[in-house]
C-alpha cells in the first residue's frame, strides 16, 4: 500500500527520461484488462530488471492522461507471496503485480438508447504498455463479457478467442511508446453509480452499532430516450430493458439485525434478506427499474452487535469496521463516513488504510447534553476494492454510560416531586378572601370531625371489650372479672366523653359545620344510646349470672336487648361511614 500512495503522486507521462529512470528495464509485462462490469480492472504482472550501475529502490508506473483521471484504486504486490526486497541490486530482477481499478472508463456508444435496446460501450487504451522504461516483452489481453463485440482495433498480431481479445506479444519497445486501441462491445450490466453516499456509524455502548447509509444513485449507462412502456417488460421479461438497474445486492456483516430500507417518503417494500453464519445478503429493489440516466435515493440501515466491531487496546477502545458500502459492484463518487462516538468520548483519532479528508463534528441525539463527537471521513471515487477495515480510536469511561438512564430517572423523579409540591402548596393569591377563609375553616372542621370519628371508633372498641367480657362470662362464669372489665371500660368511656365535649362545642360554634353538624350530633346521640343499651344488657347478664339462672333463661332475657343493640350498631356504623367520607 505504501507504493500505491507514492505512485499516485508521480504518475505522469510528461516526465522526461532521467538517468535514474532509464536504469531499469521491464523485461516482461503481462497485462489483463477485465471489462466484465462497469468497473475496469487492469491487472499487470511486471518483471523489472536493474540494468544500471546503482541499487534501485523505486519503480515508476505511468498511466495515460485519459485513464489517470478515472483511476480509483492502485495496488502493487510482489508476484510471489514471500518475496521481499529492500532494493534492487545491479543486474537483479523482481516480479510484481499491479492492480489498477478505473471508474467511468467505459463510454456508452450510442449515448442514448431506447428502453428495449441493448447497451454498447466503448473502451480505449493503448496496445503497448505505457512506461518510462524500455519494455522488452509484453502482451495484453482484454476480457469481455460473453456477448457481442461490435468492433475492435486490429493491429498486427491481434487474436480473438471467444470473449477475449489478445494483443501481442510485442518486443523491445522504447519508453513511452503507445498505440491506441478501441473496443466497442455490448455490456448490459447495470451501471449503478452512487453520486453521494453518506454512511453514519453510531456506537452505543449498550451493545449496538447502528449503521445508516444514505444513497443517491444514478444509472450511469446510456441515457434512456423515447417512450416508456410498462407493457413490454411485463410481457417479455428477458428482452426488455436489459441494462436497467432492477435490484442491488448488499453483503452485510453476518450478525446484522434490524435491517431497514426506506426513502424520503416511506418504506420500500421490495427487498429480501437472507442470512447465514458467514454473511447476511440483502437484495433490494428500487421503487422502479432504473433506466439510463434515471436517479433514485434511498436509505438502508442495520444494527451490528457491539462485540463484533469494538475492541480494546492499551486503554483505548477502537471501532474496526469496513469503510465503504456493502453493495457489490457499486461505484461511489463521493463517500462521507461519519462515526458517531458516544457522549463523553475523548482522545479521538482515526486510522484509515488510504488517504482521505478528515474532520470532527458534534451531533446532538437522544438525551445528549453537549453532543456526541463525530469523526467525519471523506473520499471521492471509490470502488469495491476500497471496502477495507478502518479504525477509530477513542477513550470512553464506562460510567458515562449511566448518564442517560440517570437523567431519565431524575427527570421522572423531579416531575413527581413537582406534582407533590403542587398538591401541597397553597397557591391562593389572597389570604383574606371569603372563599379562602371558608376553605380554611372547612379544613378545621374536617380535622375536628376526624377526631370525633376517632373517638367514636374508640368507644365502639370499648363496647367490643364489654361484649368480650360477657362472652368470657358465659364461658367461665367468673363474675368478678366481668365486673372489673365493666369498671375499667366505664373509666375509659368517661374520659372519651370528656374529650368529645370540646370538639362538639367547636363544631356547634363553627359556621361551616352546619351541614354536617346534625349528622355528627346524631352519631353521638346514637352512640350514647347504644352504650346505654349495652350497659343495660351487661347488667342484666351479670345479674342473671349472680342469680345463677339457666343459660337459656339468660339468653331469652338478653335477646330483646340484643336485637336493639344490633340495629343501633348498624345505624352507628352507617353514620360513621358517612362521616368518614366527608
Amino acid at each position, binding site marked *: 500500500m505504501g507504493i500505491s500512495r507514492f505512485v499516485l503522486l508521480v504518475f505522469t507521462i510528461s516526465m522526461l527520461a532521467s538517468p535514474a529512470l532509464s536504469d531499469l528495464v521491464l523485461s516482461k509485462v503481462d497485462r489483463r484488462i477485465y471489462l466484465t462490469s462497469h468497473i475496469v480492472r487492469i491487472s499487470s504482472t511486471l518483471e523489472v530488471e536493474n540494468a544500471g550501475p546503482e541499487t534501485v529502490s523505486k519503480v515508476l508506473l505511468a498511466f495515460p492522461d485519459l485513464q489517470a483521471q478515472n483511476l480509483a484504486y492502485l495496488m502493487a504486490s510482489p508476484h510471489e507471496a514471500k518475496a521481499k526486497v529492500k532494493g534492487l541490486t545491479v543486474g537483479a530482477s523482481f516480479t510484481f503485480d499491479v492492480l489498477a481499478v478505473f471508474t467511468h472508463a467505459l463510454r456508452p456508444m450510442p449515448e442514448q438508447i431506447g428502453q428495449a435496446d441493448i447497451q454498447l460501450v466503448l473502451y480505449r487504451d493503448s496496445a503497448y504498455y505505457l512506461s518510462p522504461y524500455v519494455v522488452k516483452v509484453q502482451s495484453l489481453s482484454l476480457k469481455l463479457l460473453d456477448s457481442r463485440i461490435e468492433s475492435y482495433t486490429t493491429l498486427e498480431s491481434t487474436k480473438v478467442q471467444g470473449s477475449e481479445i489478445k494483443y501481442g506479444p510485442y518486443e523491445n519497445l522504447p519508453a513511452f511508446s503507445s498505440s491506441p486501441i478501441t473496443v466497442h462491445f455490448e455490456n448490459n450490466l447495470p451501471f449503478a453509480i452512487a453520486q453521494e453516499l453518506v454512511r453514519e456509524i453510531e456506537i452505543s455502548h449498550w451493545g449496538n452499532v447502528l449503521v445508516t447509509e444514505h444513497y443517491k444513485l444514478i444509472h450511469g449507462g446510456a441515457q434512456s430516450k*423515447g*417512450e*416508456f*412502456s*410498462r*407493457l413490454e417488460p*411485463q*410481457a417479455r421479461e428477458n428482452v426488455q430493458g436489459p441494462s436497467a438497474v432492477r435490484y442491488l445486492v448488499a453483503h452485510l456483516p453476518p450478525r446484522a439485525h434490524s435491517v431497514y430500507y426506506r*426513502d*424520503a*417518503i*416511506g*418504506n*420500500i*417494500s421490495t427487498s429480501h434478506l437472507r442470512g447465514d453464519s458467514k454473511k447476511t445478503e440483502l437484495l433490494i429493489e428500487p*421503487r*422502479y427499474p432504473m433506466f439510463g440516466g*434515471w*436517479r*433514485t*435515493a434511498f436509505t438502508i440501515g442495520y444494527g451490528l452487535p457491539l462485540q463484533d466491531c469494538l475492541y480494546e487496546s492499551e486503554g483505548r477502545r477502537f471501532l474496526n469496521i469496513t469503510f465503504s458500502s456493502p453493495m457489490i459492484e457499486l461505484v461511489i463518487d463521493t463517500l462521507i463516513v461519519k462515526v458517531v462516538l458516544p457522549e463523553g468520548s475523548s482522545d479521538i483519532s482515526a486510522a484509515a488504510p488510504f488517504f482521505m479528508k478528515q474532520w470532527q463534528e458534534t451531533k*446532538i*441525539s*437522544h*438525551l*445528549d*447534553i453537549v453532543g456526541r463527537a463525530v469523526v467525519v471521513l471523506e473520499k471521492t471515487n471509490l470502488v469495491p476494492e476500497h471496502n477495507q477495515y478502518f479504525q477509530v480510536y477513542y477513550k470512553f469511561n464506562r460510567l458515562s454510560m449511566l448518564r442517560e438512564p440517570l437523567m431519565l430517572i431524575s*427527570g421522572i423523579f423531579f416531575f413527581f416531586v413537582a406534582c407533590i409540591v403542587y398538591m401541597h402548596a397553597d397557591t391562593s393569591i389572597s389570604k383574606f378572601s371569603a372563599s379562602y377563609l371558608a376553605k380554611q375553616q372547612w379544613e378545621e372542621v374536617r380535622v375536628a370531625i376526624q377526631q370525633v370519628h376517632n373517638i367514636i371508633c374508640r368507644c365502639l372498641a370499648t363496647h367490643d371489650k364489654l361484649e368480650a367480657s360477657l362472652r368470657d362470662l358465659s364461658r367461665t362464669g367468673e363474675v368478678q372479672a366481668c365486673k372489673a372489665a365493666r369498671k375499667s371500660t366505664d373509666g375509659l368511656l368517661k374520659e372519651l366523653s370528656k374529650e368529645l365535649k370540646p370538639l362538639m362545642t367547636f363544631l356547634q360554634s363553627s359556621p361551616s359545620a352546619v351541614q354536617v353538624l346534625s349528622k355528627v350530633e346524631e352519631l353521638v346521640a346514637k352512640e350514647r344510646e347504644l352504650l346505654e343499651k349495652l350497659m343495660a344488657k351487661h347488667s342484666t347478664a351479670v345479674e342473671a349470672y349472680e342469680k345463677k339462672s339457666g343459660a337459656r333463661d339468660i339468653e331469652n332475657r338478653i335477646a330483646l336487648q340484643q336485637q336493639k343493640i*344490633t340495629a343501633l350498631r*348498624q345505624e352507628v356504623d352507617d353514620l360513621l*361511614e358517612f362521616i*368518614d*367520607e366527608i
Partner: protein
Amino acid sequence: MSNSSTSDLLKPFKLKTKQQELLIRVSILCLVYILAFITRLFSVLRYESMIHEFDPYFNYRTTLYLTQHGFYDFWNWFDYESWYPLGRIVGGTLYPGLMVTAALIYRLLHFLRFAVHIREVCVLTAPFFASNTTLVAYFFGKEIWDSGAGLVAAILIAVCPGYISRSVAGSYDNEGVAIFALLFTFYLFVKAVNKGSLAWGLASAFGYFYMVSAWGGYVFIINLIPLYVLVLLITGRYSMRLYVAYNCMYILGMLLAMQIRFVGFQHVQSGEHMAAMGVFFLMQVFYFLDWVKHMLSDTKLFQEFLSITVTCAVAAGGIALGVGAASGYISPWTGRFYSLLDPTYAKDHIPIIASVSEHQPTAWSSFMFDFHILLFLFPAGLYFCFKRLSDATIFIVMYGLTSMYFAGVMVRLILVATPAVCLISAIAVSATVKNLTVLLRSKNKVAQIGSTKGTSSAKASSKASLDQSQPFQKNGAMALLFGAFYLLSRYATHCTWVTSEAYSSPSIVLAARGAHGNRVIFDDYREAYFWLRQNTPPDAKVMSWWDYGYQITAMGNRTVIVDNNTWNNTHIATVGRAMSSYEDEAYEIIRSLDVDYVLVVFGGVTGYSSDDINKFLWMVRIGGGVFPVIKEPDYLVNGEYRVDKGAAPKMLNCLMYKLSYYRFGEMMPEYGKPPGYDRARGVEIGNKDIKLEHLEEAFTTSNWIVRIYKVKPPNNRW
C-alpha cells in the same frame, strides 16, 4: 388469629372508601388514556409510520416548512408549487392550529433531547389528542352528570369508530386536534355557566381560540353557544352566571379569533357569525331590563317598558342586519353553510362540494357502523337528561340534537356528533347501571347483617328475599346488568373490528390478499411520486385531477396545477375541461397552462375502483359548470356511463380515456379474459387502438395504477 393479624398489619394501608374510589377512577382514566392511544395504532403496525390520505400530506408539508423555516416564514409563505401559475398564500389560507401544535410538540421533544423525526410527531398527533379528548370527556361528563357518567363517556369516546375514523395514527388532519378543541371549549363554557366565574369564561375563550386556529368547524361553536343561550333566555333560565360566561367568551373569543388570518374580520362581517352577535346584544338588553325591574317596583309599568324595549331592540337589530347585508358589509352565507341547512343545495349549485364522497348525506348503515349501540343509548340518555334538567344537561341535549342533524346531512360531520352521542349515551349507561347496582347493594347489606348474626348465608338470602316486596327484583337487576355489560362488550369488539378493518388503511398503500392468502401490497402511488421527484426537472409542472395535488407536491415535490384546496373553481374546471376534451383541444389548454407532465390514476389492471375513469363524470360536470362547451350528455349513452364498445364517441376519444387506456388494449390483465379487459369496471374497453400525438408515456407504475405522460414540445411549423 392469623387473619386478624394480617388485617391489623394492613390497617395503615387500608384506604378509605373515598380514596379507594379515587384510586380506581384514576387508574381507569389512565387505562382509557392508553387504550385510546393504542387502538389507533393499527395502521402503524400493519403498514408503517406514515401519513394517510390526501389532506394530511399538505398538513405534513406545511409542518415540515414550519419546523425548517420558523413561524414568520410560515406565516408569510407564498407557495409557488401549487395552483400554478396562480400560487397560493399558504399562511393566509389555512388553519395553523394543527401545524403549530405539532411543531410545538416537536420543539418540546427536542428541547428534552428526544431526537424524533417530525414525521413521527405528525403521525402520532391525532392519537395523542384523542387520548386528551377522553380526559376532557370525563370532566365534561362529571360536570353535566356525575363522575360515573364521566368515566363511561371517556371509555365510550376512546373507542368510538365515529371519532377513530379521523384520528388514527397517520391521519394528520385538522379534525384530529379540532374535536379535542371543540369538546374542550364546550366543557369550559358549561363550567363557566355553572360557576359563573370569569376565570372559566376566559378559559373557554382561549379554548375557542384554539378551535378557531385548528378547524373551520368552529362555526358550529359560534352558532351553537348563542343558540343555547337563547334557549336558556327563552326558558327563563337567565342568570348572572350565564351573562358573565357568555360575554366573556364572546368578546374575548372574537378578538382572539380575529388574530387568525384566515378568519380575520369574518367574525364581525360574515352572516354565519351574526347569530352570536345578535345574542350578545340581546344579553345586554336582558341585563338592562333586569336592572330596570330592580329599580321599578311597579310590575305593570315594567311590563309596558318590557314590550317597548324588546320591540325596539328587535327592530334595531333587524334594521342593522338589513343595512349591513344590503351594503355588503355583512357577507351572505357561504355555499358550504347553505348546503348544511339544505342538503340538496350543493348538488344543484356547487358540484365541487358534491363531488367529495365525504360530503354526501349519511346512510343509515354508516350511523350503525360508527355508533353501534350508542344509537340506541342516545335517546335513553336524552330521557335521563330531560328528567334532570339543568343548564348543563340542556347544553348537552342541544349539542346532541343539532350535531345529530348535521351528521345526517354530511357523512364527515358524524365526527362532530360523536362526542355528544358518547356523552349522552354515557349518561344513559351510568344512570341505568347506578340504579341497578343500588338495588343489588341494598340487598347485599341485608345479607351481610344476616351473616354477622351467625346464621348461614343461605338462610340469610332467603330471609332477605322474603323481606323484599318485589321478589324478582334482584334477579331482574342482575339480568339487566349482565345485559348492559354484554352490550358494552359487544360495542368494544365492534369498535376494535371497525378500527382494524375499515379505518386503518393509509389509502396511499393498498393491500390485498393474493391467490395464496399472502398479503400483496400495491405501492404504486409512492412509486410514481418518487419517480416524479427523482427523474423530472425540479420546475416541472404536473397536471392531474385535484385529488392528487397535495400528494404530488408533498411526495413528488413538483408543482401542480390544482390541488385539494379547491379555492379556485375556474382553475379546476380548466383541468376538467382539458381532461374531457379531444387531444388536440386538450393540448392547447395544456400548453396554455405550461404543463410538462400529466398524471392519471387508472385501476383497470388491479380492479382499483376509485380511479380517474370513475371520477371522470365529476370532471365533466365541474368543467361544464364553467365552460358550457363541455356537455355531460356527450359522454353518456342513454344516460348511462360506459367505457366499452357502446360508449359515446366523445368518451372514447377524450384525453382522460386515451391516457387511461393507452396501450391497455394489448394487455391481458386477467387470465381467460380478452386483452383490454378493464377489471375495475368489468368490461372490455371500446377503443383499443389509441394513438397519442402530443403526449408520450413517461412512466407507468408496476400495477399501472399511476400513469404519467410527458407533454411533447410543439412541432416545428415549417
